[in-house]
């Protein structure tokens, strides 16, 4: 097969699942996991995690603060399949059953630096009113067979979802060797390079 140690670039992500806004619910916890392409390999850190249960704050924002740290390093040979972080939030319903309160996914930012991302969350809808009722009654809401599905496109057309709250992430991204391999993602460099291009054009 290919060379034992292909040239790779690295993407280090750390940060935290800061908080969530689910006005209707309380006492939620969240899970995160990463979805990435075939050319990606996590080299360090945790691929998935499950947070503590948090209650709403008493202030006016009524946010649910998790501050759940994320720290993972990937190496890859190909930007295709850039990692996505999938967040799923769970919490008890009226009867105390653990039900899903939202799924959401976002790509890890390409640009090195500090990024704040607010992900809209959604849950799959019941196929009918009756099912909705029974699922509520029985405490088994429809949920994805795998949270990772929300990071994929295939097959989503058969589902119906409803939006439900937001989750805010703070991600610090550090990349290594991206530029060396020809992937120029940093915004600063983009800027300067474009200036150079323009001035070149003028000189010509």
């Amino acid at each position: 097969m290919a060379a034992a140690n292909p040239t790779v670039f690295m993407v280090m992500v750390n940060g935290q699942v800061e908080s969530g806004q689910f006005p209707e619910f309380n006492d939620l916890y969240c899970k995160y996991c990463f979805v990435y392409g075939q050319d990606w390999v996590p080299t360090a850190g945790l691929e998935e995690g499950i947070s503590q249960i948090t209650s709403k704050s008493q202030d006016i924002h009524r946010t649910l603060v998790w501050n759940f740290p994320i720290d993972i390093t990937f190496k890859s040979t190909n930007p295709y399949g850039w990692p996505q972080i999938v967040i799923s939030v769970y919490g008890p319903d009226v009867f105390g059953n653990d039900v899903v309160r939202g799924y959401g996914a976002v790509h890890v930012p390409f640009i090195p630096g500090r990024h704040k991302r607010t992900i809209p969350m959604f849950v799959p809808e019941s196929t009918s009113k009756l099912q909705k009722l029974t699922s509520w009654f029985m405490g088994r809401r429809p949920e994805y067979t795998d949270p990772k599905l929300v990071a994929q496109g295939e097959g989503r057309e058969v589902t119906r979802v409803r939006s439900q709250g937001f989750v805010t992430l703070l991600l610090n991204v550090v990349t290594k060797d991206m530029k060396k391999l020809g992937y120029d993602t940093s915004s600063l460099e983009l800027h300067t390079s474009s200036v150079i291009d323009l001035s070149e054009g003028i000189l010509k």
Partner: protein
Amino acid sequence: MKNRLKGREEENVKKTFGDDTVIARDPEMSHKEEKLKIISEEFVENEDGEAEKLKKKLKVQKQKRRKQIRKLMLREVKEGRDQIQVFLTSSLSTAPHRCLPKLQDTGLEEQLEGTANLGFQQEHQERSESNLLSMAIRKGPRNLPPIPSTSRTGFAEFSMRERMREKLKAARSKAESALLQEIPSPKPRHFVSLREEEMTGFEEEPGKNVLREPQDKDSQRSTRVRFQDSGRKLKFKPQVPPGFPSAEEAYNFFTFNFDPEPEKDETKDKKREESNQEVEEGEEEEEKPTYEEQAEKMDEEELINKKEANDFLLDLDQTIHDFLELRAAEYESIHVIKQKEKEILFRPSSLTGIGYYRNKNIFSLLISQERKWFGDDGRILALPNPIKQFSTRPPIFSPEEGIEAGLEILYKKAVNSVPNNQYIVGSGDSLGQFQLDIDISGLIFTHHPCFSREHVLASKLAQLYDQHLARRQRNQTKFLTDKLNALRNAVHTHPDFTKTHGPGHTAQESMKKYKFDIRQTRRLRDAEEEKDRILLKTIIKVWKEMKSLRDFQKFTNTPIKLFLRKEEVDWKIDEKVFETEIQAETDELLEEHMEEYEKIMEEYNTAYQKWKTWKKTQRNKKKKKKATEDQEEATEGSEYGEEPVKPTPPEPVDRSTIEQQVRERALHRRRKPGEPILIPELSLAGSVTPIELCPRAEILRREDVKKRSVFLKVLFNNKEVSRTVSRQIGMDFRVHFGQIFNLQIHNWPESLTLQVYETAGYGSNNLLAEVFLPIPETTVFTGRASIEEIEFSSNQHVTLDHEGVGSGEPFSFEADGSNKIILMTSGKVSHSVAWAVGENGIPLIPPASQQSTGIRRRIDAIASIGASGLADMKKLAKWAAESKLDPNDPNNASLMQLITVATSGDTYVPEFFRLEQLQQEFNFISDEELNRSKRFRLLHLRTLEVPEFRNFKQVPIYDREIMEKVFQDYEKRIRDRGIIETKDHLDTHRAIVAKYLQQVRESVINRFLIARHHFLLSDLVVEEDVPNISILGVSLFKLAEQKRPLKPRRKGRKKVPAQNLSDGDIKLLVNILRAYDIPVRKPISSKLQQPSRSSRPFSETLVTSPSMQSPAHILDNVLNQVLVRPFVEVSFQRTVCHTTTAEGPNPSWNEELELPFRAPNSDYSTTSMQSVKDDIFINIFDEVLYDILEDDRERGSGIHTRIERHWLGSVRIPFSTLYFQGRIDGTFKIDIPPVLLGYSKERNIINERGFDSVRSLSDGTYITFFMTIEPHLVSGESVREKFDSQEDEKLLQATEKFHVECALKFPKRQCLTTVTNLSGKTVFITRYLRPLNPPQELLDMYPNNPQATAELVARYVALIPFLPDSVSFNGICDLWSTSDQFLDLLAGDEEEHAVLLCNYFLALGKKAWLVMGSAIPEGPTAYVLTWEQSQYLIWNPCSGHFYGQFDTFCPLKSVGCLISPDNIWFNIQRYDSPMRINFDITKPKLWKSFFSRSLPYPGLSSVQPEELIYQSTDKVAAAELQDRIEKILKEKIMEWRPRHMTRWNRYCTSTLRHFLPLLEKNQGKDVEEDHRAELLRQLGDYRFSGFPIHMAFSEVKPLIETVYSTGVHNIDISNVEFALAVYVHAYPKNVLSVWIYVASLVRNK
């Protein structure tokens, strides 16, 4: 260009001198052309010389920057020269055309005003003109030619050449004051002023001079005069004074460089035409001075340029680089500008009297600066955006953390994106933008609703007058009259017309032609004259009407007045002309008539002759026939009937009558002699009645008109691109816009439309009409395009309540309302559309190739030569080159241009048709290059899910990191697709089969590719079903149930789709519960013999037998030490787990083992999981402890034992079974080798304790376990697709009905009526059953023993390797192959085995059915049921075992339906366990039959062949295979023992090898004791442990796996030896039975 000019000149000449003038200039021209080149070269040298001088002087001053300056100077000089050339050419070329006529009289400003009136189109003209003027003016006063000839004529003496020299000198003087002495006049300014005065005087003179002395052949005559003459009249033969260029040369020289500024010429030309009449007289006087000025202004320009350059240079303190950059920006310091200003503006103060110069000067200054400030379009030259490209300040990064880097707003200059002309097919390289200039100068309504009656008449009058003017301009009458006269003259003067007849044949011919021409011309002329007259009459009539209307309504609306100018004519001359004309005409007519008369006479004569002869014959006949009978008369009646009419002789022509006619006609058509010529003249001098004096209705009308305004929208390709300003409609219903729209376009326009909108008051815009403008030809450029008028009309009906006549409404001029007319709103838009010319003179026209992409437009250039439809430019160019088309012929100009454009390579005409024309856009790299990239190839193959690359991880980023061998496998596979590889398979036949399977598989996969990517909601979302009553009941019941029940049941688990899993997620859980009847160690001393059970016949086997062992014997065993210490080892994918060791032959472990599962390529998709071919081995070993303590004395202090494990048997379960079943739960028979040396199946009575009455029914060892995959994986669904079928539609409907009925009652029972065959078609299942002959060889074996034969046949079928469909066909569907296909493939799953076995049994004469049901471990499967001697037997087709109906260990657990060759019975009994059901199919209460009385069996033909043909197997090949397997296995065993030496005991091996055929012969029975004895005898001093393994042969890999799973190689005693023997027994049809005997030997000490 020159030629065009020439042509124009010729026209001009023609006009002035009439047709007769012969133009014979061309030879001269060519001559001139030759010379002019030489001259121009001279000039170049000359100037270079001057430049050199200049340079030297500069050197003195500025030595440091010498080089730069030199370069610059050179360039400057050259530029100056070029300018001069250009300028001269233009000015000179225009000179002969009498341009700039007004210049003198009116001054520049007037001129401008005048031109401005002409609308925009003249703006160009104006510009160019003013340019010219300004330059001229700038030069004019500046320098005087230093040649001191003071006489006026002498002034003309100096040639252009001298002038140039002077110019340079002057330049020098400016450049350096040190050179002043070279200039003859020390005070140039004075001189200049003098010169100007001179010039003013001169202006009137030279022209006269020229006219006065036209015959002067003196060489002293000025070249200019000559030049002018030659340019104009060509009357003079100029003689070239030696050393001077002739006038022609000069002319040529200056006209040579024509092309860069063609439009100037054009505009001049046009202007000339417009002002033609005025210019006619006295124009020559004006012409020369302007010309002279022009000539001078070049000197001026040169000078200024030089000066500028010098100043510029002096100011420079920069490096070359900077300098060059600045140069482009045309930098000029304020100082320089001021100085220049001073120079230029100074003089006028001294010439206060002549405002003309002042104006000129100011303007010239403006223009001179305009060169830098203004562009060609008269706008200020500026960068499109004054904002700098990037900020001069360094970017500030906000210190705040709040703004993310990615969201920071950066200023990015809006850059004009390069137009995407690539959307056009084959546009090739960038063509830039093209520009279409649309000039809308104005709009005239020929009718408008607000027209008063007077307006209607006025417009009518105006139209008529226009018509009249047009006619007069064409003056057809005059032309035709002249022509007629000429023709007449020709006829009269024709020599020998009447005299020579014979030789003058051609002359006669031409005479005839002449006459014919005369007639034609006369007729035409008459018609024209008549028309003229009628027109005149109508004009007068309309005018009269108008006058009467004005009188009637007592006010006037229009300023139109018609004057009729009478031109008195001399009555006598007129009369004479008239008379001669009449006479001539009469003569001609007479002649004509005479000719006609002659012709008719001739005809008459012949006819008369005919008639005469006829008469004669008639008379004769009559005479004859008088005697004949009457009845013949009737027949001859016809003859009489043909009697020709007697021709009447034509009347001779009378001259007087003809003359009379002619006169009448002439009077009618022509002006009577002496009648004054009436020339109508329309003027707008009349006064319009002021509004106060008008009646109310009229006031209303006028107010209405005032309210109305009009604007035009310009639509390009049906999109509005711009619109004019809204202009009020004037009282004269003319709207002047004078707007130019520059359309920057990319494509060839499809349509150009103007929409005329009218706004009344504050109302909405009302679309009056659409005007479609023609798209200009490629040769029409801005400045050259003439203003054209396009009429429009609207069909709107407008009725107004005032004087306005409305539109579309009838109105009348008469008081009584009769004579109604209806007029629609109409008008004319005057516009011009032309292609713009770029800065460098390149016309901004889209290439011709684009035209064809839009509306199919043919270029007229091609059409003009009659070859319409030519599209191939290259061919056209070639043809043009070959045919030596005259490029100078003005007719070919457009064609030539087209060709030059075409051949220059600018246009690229695609020779193909492309569907996805944008595809090219996205190809950033060529396909070949892309394919060459290994990385892209790898990525591509991975995306295609090519098996080799499906889960390729980490595709390297560099090509160099991708090994070439990555592709080797794939390429090899692709290459070998057709080639059959025998190496892997050891057997050709199987290789073929494997290939075939592979192909079938591929095709099936392709067929179901879409279905695989089709998701259901359940695949993605887990949702509880809506509970029905039963579920609710169950759940209610659940509430009541115990939390910890005594007998817990396994709960169902959630199913997980396999696609989102990764390595390590899936585990295999195996719960080993217990085992029964494990063989026990046999003490070597034991001599107990026991007849083997299996040798008993059916009856005996199946009859419950009591224990046959004597109690004494049992006791003996019991007293022995531990019988066996078994443990279970589960191995899967080379991972091994084992339980703890239990004791005794019926151990109970109750242990859970966990094994990780790894999918191939880490691909956990359903398809990949389904194709996992790995087996799960559950092996039972006996742990044997050997005391190897050598010294008994140490026994007290230590234990030294060696553990050996002896393989006892195994259960093998394919992973696919587990995957599809989800779980496997039950008691399974352990596959124990027929010979297990050192062990025996002893009955352990103690353990059984009498419970064995049931269990002992079947012999063998059993193990109970539970096995599942964690998490529960969703297995691939069957295809949601209906297959087409060749079955009868009724039958299919019946099957569906049957299915529905069955499913209603017993939804879980398997009911099968139709299956899919290998070609994907639905087939009724009974067609698969048909008696088929088993191999004769098998029948011959036990001819007298049907039971043995049956067993043998079952064994034969079982020997065909088992290959589940899910593996071969990715589990998508269950394909049934026929028995011959099955035998050919030598692989199949339960159905195929069962069908074949059933067919064999049927052939053997048994009653046999196919049983569809579920079994363990297979799940839904097919078994065979036979009726044998009052009992039913259930056969497992895959193992060859048979079970009685009441056998507890029968793996078949439920029965769904029975299938016979002619019917299907569905089990409708309460139970489905074979033990509890009745197999009597005749009872309809128990079995629901498919075919019944209502639907009788239609006699379906079988899909099976009539009989199977068996080839006897090649024994040699089998032997060969045997050797190869043995070799491979030996190698493998050595490989598995990397740390130890593997010794092979050959003696033992050969012994085993002899033994194996015996085993095959006895099917593994009855040989144990003999064998043991034999071995003991031969290997007495060895401790021997080994066993034969029997397998069906499909591939080598399973054999290896099996051997590995036994763990024989695990013995690591130092002195161990191995023995391995392989025997392959070949059955017909290449069915191979493989025996492998593996043994380990340890020498006893």
